[in-house]
Each structure stands twice: as C-alpha cells, then as structure tokens.
C-alpha cells in the first residue's frame, strides 16, 4: 500500500488528469468488450468464452491492415468487420450446434476456439510482442487540460466508444430490428411463428457482439502491445464487469466498466501489487450486497 503516492496524485491536477484519462480508456475498452458479451448472452443465452479471442483477432486484423495500407480508418474497419464476419462463421459452423446442450459442451468448443486462435496468431504473426505504433492521423500534440496532458488518440478513443455504445443502445431500444431482437431473447418460438428468420437473426446478433469485441481490439491496438493470448485477461475483466454491472444491462456495463477503469488507474498508484485484488474485492462486495449486480434485472442466483 502506498497511500502517500495516491494522496499526492489526487492533490496534483496534472496527475489527476492523466490518471482519469487512463481510467476512461481502460473503462471504455472494457465496456465495448462487455457489451458484446452481454448482448450475446442476453439474446442467445450462452456465454461466449471465446470473446477475448475475438478481441485479440480484432487487434491483429487492425495491425495487419495498418501495415498494408498505413491508414487507421482501414485498420479500424478491418478489425471490426473482420471479427464480425469471423463471429458469424463461428456461430454458424460451431456455436449453433451446441445450443441447448449443457454448459460443458459450450465451454469446450470455446476453449477449442481460443486454443486455435492463439496458435493461428502465433503461426501468422509470430509469438513475439508486436507494436502497432500511433497512427499518423493522431500524431498531434497532446491536449492540455488543467496542467495535465491527454494524447489526442485517447480523446478519439473515448468519443468513438461512447458513440458506438449510444448507437447500440438506440439500435436495441428504439428501432424495429432492436424490438425483434428483444422479442427473440424472450420468446424465440413466437418470433419464428411470425415469419421472422430466427437463424439469421441469431447469427446476426452473434456477429454484432463479436464486432464489438473487434472494435475494442482495433481501438486498443495503437496503445497496447499485441501478444497471442492477450484476450484472456480482458475476458476475465469483462466477466467481473458483467457481474458488477448486472447481466443484460448496457448502462450497468458502462458504469461497472468505468468503475474497474478507475480502480485500475488509481490502484496502480495506491497499491500497484494489488490491482487485480482490488477488482476482485469490488466484485466480492457487489456479490454480497446485491447478487444481481448494480443494474441487473434478473437475480444471479
């Protein structure tokens, strides 16, 4: 524990600004990943344990596209759409065959998928750490705010995530397609009986959920080192976010993701060796006080 360092940071506005911006980007990335996970669970009733692998693929797709075209826009689209497509293929070929079977089977196919994805990345890109570097479009001077500096890319990242989150919320709550998807989550037979192609819709929802993981991967690529197996840690964190925020709530996911982001950013100063422990402590407290999560509708019991 180093409370002096923490107090020192909180009293200095420069440090505060830096840590808050770090907290925001960690939180926003987690929010992207978690909302995809939560969407898939809410509609299809399965936990996609391979979601972290999709995040990793998003980052690597973006890296490959960026190295080919050196355009960040292309890299971003490659990460998002590539992973979206991959998700649809995975759903059609593999996941759809284990709907309705026990959790064990779903867990196993996801486990297999992670093993395959990690090894394929190792074969194609090599096992060593990769850096994408900051795209030229964001080679701007950092923005000064209350004496602290925020890289321009962070601002873009936070804005883009918020925009995508907003679009997702509007799409699900305000459009006809969103209404159909919500109906699908509650009563798939009825939706099918009304002449809607539920198979297509399931694949589409899985695709959108995966796309969100791909977006997160592509957004993270310029700021983080890329390694095969980078998906696991974000998967664990997004599980924690889901439990804290409550399953199936986009707003809950946002709040919980920000909470974890702040815990990580300030925990790194206050108790650097216990950052992971801090997240688990938060989760344990929420589980004891409110087992369904902060904004969860159905109880987790």
């Amino acid at each position, binding site marked *: 524990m180093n409370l002096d360092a923490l107090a020192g940071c909180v009293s200095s506005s420069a440090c505060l600004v830096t840590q808050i911006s770090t907290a925001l980007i960690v939180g926003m990335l987690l929010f992207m990943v978690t909302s995809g996970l939560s969407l898939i*669970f809410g509609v299809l009733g399965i*936990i996609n*344990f391979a979601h972290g692998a999709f995040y990793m693929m998003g980052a690597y797709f973006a890296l490959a596209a960026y190295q080919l075209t050196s355009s960040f826009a292309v890299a971003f689209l490659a990460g998002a759409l590539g992973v979206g497509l991959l998700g649809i293929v995975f759903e059609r070929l*593999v996941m759809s*065959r*284990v709907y309705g*079977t*026990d*959790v*064990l*089977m779903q*867990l*196993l*196919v996801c*486990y*297999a*998928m*992670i*093993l*395959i994805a*990690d*090894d*394929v990345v*190792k*074969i194609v890109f090599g096992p060593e750490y990769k850096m994408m570097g900051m795209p030229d479009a964001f080679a701007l001077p950092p923005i000064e705010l209350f004496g602290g500096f925020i890289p321009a890319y962070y601002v873009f990242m936070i804005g883009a995530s918020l925009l995508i989150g907003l679009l997702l919320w509007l799409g699900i709550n305000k459009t006809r397609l969103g209404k159909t998807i919500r109906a699908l989550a509650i009563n798939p037979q009825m939706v099918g009986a009304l002449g809607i192609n539920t198979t297509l819709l399931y694949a589409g929802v899985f695709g959108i959920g995966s796309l969100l993981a791909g977006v997160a991967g592509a957004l993270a690529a310029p700021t983080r080192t890329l390694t095969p197996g980078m998906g*696991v*840690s974000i998967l*664990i964190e997004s*599980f*924690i976010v*889901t*439990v804290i925020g409550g*399953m199936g709530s986009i707003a809950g996911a946002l709040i919980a993701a920000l909470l974890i982001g702040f815990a990580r950013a300030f925990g790194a100063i206050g108790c650097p*060796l216990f950052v*992971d*422990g801090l997240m*688990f402590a938060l*989760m*344990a407290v929420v*589980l*004891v006080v409110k*087992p369904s999560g902060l904004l969860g509708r159905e109880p*987790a*019991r």
Partner: protein
Amino acid sequence: MMRPGLARDAAVCAAGLALLLVLPLAFPQPALRDFLIYVMAYGLLAMSLNLLVGLTGLVSFGHAAYFASGAYMFGLLMQSGRVSIPVAIVATVAGTALIALVIGAICVRLKEIYFSFITLAFQMFIHSIILTWVSLTGGDQGLMGGIPRPPFLGINLNEGTALYGFCAAVFVACVLLMRQVWMSPFGYALRLIRDNPSRANFVGIDVVRAKLGIFVFAGAMASVAGVLLALFVSGAYPEFGFWTTSGEAIFMIMLGGSQLFVGPLVGAFLLQLLNRTVTIYTEHHGLVLGLVILLIVLGLRQGVGAFLFERLARRRQARR
C-alpha cells in the same frame, strides 16, 4: 460408516494398485513410469473436478487453482526444511481446503454460468498472485531450487521406484475416498441438487451448504494431485494454475464421460497419450488439440467414454 459395496470398491482399488505397481516391473522403461505418474496426477485433478461437474452439476472452470495451490504450498513447505513429507501433505490439503472454502463461499451462491466464469476469474487471480509475488513463488520461472524429499519412516522418495510407489498408493487412496463420497447418501443428495435444486430444497437439503461441502472436498483432492506432480517434477510452475489447465481437465471429463466415476481417469489417460504424440510432431500443440476437441464435440456430440458406454449398454439390452 460401512456401506454395501465398500468391500468391493476396496478390492477393486487394491487390484488397481497392484496393477499400477506391477506394470513398471513388467516394462522397466522409465518413460512408462513418468507417463503413469502424469496420468495419475491429471487423472486425480479431473476426477476431483468431476465431483463438481458430473455429480453436482457445477461446471467449475477454475479448478486448476487448487491444483496449483497444492503444488506451491507443498513445495514451499518442503523448501522450508522444517516438516516431513506426510506433514507437509496434510498441511497443504488443509490450507487448500481453506482457500476453497473462501472462494467457494462466494461462488456456490451463483447460478450455473455465473459460477463458471467467477471460478475462472478467481483462478486467474491466484495465477496472477503466483506471477507477481516473485520473492515467494519465483514468478514465471516457477518454484526454483528443487523440492527436497527427506526420507520418512524408512521410505526414501529420492529413489525412482519408491517415488512411483508412493504416488500410486496416495492416488489409489484418494480414488477410494472419492468413490466413498460418490456412492454415499451425500453423493445422492448432490445428484438431486444437480437434477432438481428446488426439490432438493423442499426435502430439507441445505443446497448452498452441500454445494460448498463438495466444492471444498473437490479442491482438497485437487491439491493432492498438485502435490503428486510437484513431488515428481520437483518444482511448481505457474502453468499449473493457468486457465488452460482447467480447460484440459474439463476436456478430460468430457472425453471419458462425466457420469462414469472412472470416466475422467480414462479421459486423462487419452489426453496424456494425445499430448505426448502431438508434441513429438509439432510445436503447435494448441491448434491440434483445439481441432480434436471440435471434432469430438461436434462429431460425437458427447464424450468418447459416454459414447462407448452407451453403445455397450444398448448391445447388452439387445441381447436380452
């Protein structure tokens, strides 16, 4: 407490132990002994996990945490040089049971899929503690310096045959103990919880307490598996507690069949065989393993063990 069938199970176990002891005498290559110790350690891990998965319906994805805790606690106790091997084993099992009690108290309250991922999350927490507490655990290098094996009661485990015999005896004893739980009234209460938790509640079973009980017991058994492996490789490595180890244990259960008591052991044997063959030919062991899993899950739609068992049962019925 005696139950009918205990004598038979004990006889089967004694025969199994005799077989395990005779095998290396008949085929004296050290490679076979190594292979069998790995099968016993991972088999014990998978069988203990199956007390949760197959018996109680709790799909834990974080069981390797107790495996690692067993290996590390035992290794650290032995390195301290103050205790003998049996004392260290007892202390390790008790310590791991305590960890499982704390984690289990939080986890067993959650319903199935939440349970899976929170157990996974706790396992990764323990894994990250192992990685970051370098001064105690050696970080990603694993527990360095070897684990001493001081002789006790005239048994010297530095000798290959004695080590193998000791591992086989501990393994068989644990199997018999788990079999006892599997067939006990408590075991049947757990089956009821798996099949119909609300009915279990109505009949007066304290569901949360029963789940916690088996969670702690399974964790303790997994720690013995960790002790066996640490004793054999004379070290402990963070991979013991990585999520892939839990995934492999789940795959072993599925390979062998979760409803057969010895199913996971068969699965452990098959997976060890597969792993050894694959690593000879390629370094991309994950890719091959992943494809094999997909083939089996999507092709057979159930475990190899369960598949064979069902065919056998159908044949038997047809004969009648």
